């Protein structure tokens, strides 16, 4: 089957800075594709190019069989975008916002009413239809934006940090809606988030750093690639303890992060038994867990995503 998104040799330079340094990837139809990376990694630049908002310096993007550089209108009809920042007209009602969208995307007149009803049901906003958007809470605005993005039945839905600034309960709800959509409509979703636990719902994730994709695979494969368990360890002297572990277990990978040491070993049972008995600096805390996407990110970039974020901001 033809991929729904096909990116080849994609590059983008701004004046002297090369923001995107050559990307090649494909997204299959019906897939949830997670696009991860810290600020300044080139994520937004890439999405803007895919959404026809920014012209690439080099390379090509094909969406739904249309070339993003040459058939902008066809591409625009094929995609829906939920931007990071709010793009609703707050002075208008939910209904008016949705109707405008129908007209922008040439949804046939006789189908508008039924579709508006349908998308409002998906996001549970049927009763708020006639209210002005300025009276909505943050979560409601987000849901309305998702509803609006679906109105023209896009083949691909782009979600750029859809849950940023929402409380945990609303976030959980939003993901329920998104998963329901995937099951019901089979829409392909291209999603960026820096809550890595949320990216776990992706069928595949790509990790981007410094303008390149450094890893791309299913979350499960990426995690198993790390091999073994993660042991979080706190001791009274982390520096000397980490040296000691490195000396005694050459196969262990040790990362120091703030107060905590992350140790990755193939056989956690034997390792734990040994260090509790024999480590010179007494152990104050110990936790064994399966690797998460956070660990994948840490392993590939040497940073946690939150920290990379901070650095990205400080640098920009």
């Amino acid at each position, binding site marked *: 089957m033809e991929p729904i998104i096909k990116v080849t040799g994609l590059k983008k330079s701004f004046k002297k800075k090369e923001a995107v340094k050559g990307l090649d990837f494909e997204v299959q139809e019906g897939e949830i594709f997670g696009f991860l990376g810290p600020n300044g990694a080139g994520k937004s630049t890439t999405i803007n190019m895919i959404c026809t908002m920014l012209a690439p310096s080099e390379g090509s993007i094909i969406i739904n069989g249309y070339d993003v550089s040459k058939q902008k209108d066809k591409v625009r009809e094929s995609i829906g975008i939920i931007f990071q920042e709010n793009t609703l007209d707050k002075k208008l009602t939910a209904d008016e916002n949705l109707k405008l*969208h129908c*007209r922008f995307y040439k949804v046939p007149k006789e189908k508008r009413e039924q579709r508006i009803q349908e998308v409002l049901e998906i996001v549970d906003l049927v009763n708020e239809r006639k209210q002005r958007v300025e009276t909505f809470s943050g979560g409601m605005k987000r849901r309305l934006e998702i509803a609006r993005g679906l109105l023209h039945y896009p083949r691909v839905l782009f979600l750029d940090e859809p849950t940023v600034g929402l409380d945990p309960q609303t976030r959980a709800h939003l993901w329920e809606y998104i998963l329901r959509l995937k099951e019901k409509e089979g829409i392909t979703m291209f999603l960026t988030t820096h809550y890595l636990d949320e990216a776990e719902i992706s069928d595949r994730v790509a990790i981007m750093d410094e303008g390149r994709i450094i890893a791309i695979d299913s979350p499960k494969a990426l995690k198993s690639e790390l091999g073994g368990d993660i042991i979080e360890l706190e001791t009274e002297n982390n520096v000397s303890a980490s040296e000691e572990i490195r000396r005694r277990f050459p196969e262990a990978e040790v990362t120091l992060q703030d107060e905590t040491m992350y140790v990755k070993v193939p056989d956690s049972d034997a390792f734990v038994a040994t260090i509790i008995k024999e480590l010179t600096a007494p152990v104050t805390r110990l936790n064994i867990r399966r690797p998460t996407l956070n660990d994948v990110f840490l392993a590939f970039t040497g940073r946690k995503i939150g920290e990379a974020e901070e650095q990205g901001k400080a640098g920009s």
Partner: protein
Amino acid sequence: MEGILAIWQRDLTKFFRDKARLFGSFTMPILFLLIFGGGMSGTMESMMSAGLGEEAGDFNYVEFVFPGIVAMTLLMTSVFSALSIIEDKDFGYMKEILVSPISRVSIAVGKMAGAATVATIQGVILFLLIPLLGLSYDFTALLQVIPFMFLFACALSGLGLLFASVIRSTQGFQMTVQILVMPMIFLSGALFPVNNMPAWMDVIVKVNPVTYGVDVMKKIMIDVDTLSPAVVEAMGLNITVFGRQVTILEEILFILGFAAVLVLLATISFRRANA
């Protein structure tokens, strides 16, 4: 077409919903009508009709200035409506428009038509003051001038679109527009005839598109044919360019061309925009 209508309708809905803006926009023209039409009309009349001798009685300054003040309202409202583009950029809505498949020409035309419609409505509402000012214009002339007012307002909103595409901030936009709009009114013949201007100022008058719009409006509204040539001359209603008197048709074509060029420029700027 649907896209143009959608953008046009959105701007109208928002205009009628914004009560403060709706009423605020009438204060300026009414103030001008009070000052020029009421307070200063005697002075202006005697100054302008000084050389007319016994024909001076035919000269009515309020009748002269009223179309000018309507034109001024068109100019202010049209240009300032383009502020909505900067607001849309600030509040993110421009992104929703730009990622949609609407053609970029439709965005420009829709925005222009929206601003021009709002301006024309305001101009027409000012017609209600005609009896209060003791004026009487021919009713058919008033009906005839409305389509031209819309065309003129289109050209002026195009000017607003051009500013909005270059200027990023709301404050910057307001500053620039204030600085430009005032001279455009004063050097257009809207409030007083621009007959005996110094040469350099005369050049500005002749390149100012408002001059021709005001002239067309006055020629339609004031019954020029019944006035003696001397009065028409005193009102400054026979503009000459390169020594040749321009006709009303030429003036309308000029405004039309001006609007078309501005739509083109606005389209180019939307094509480049990535919000």
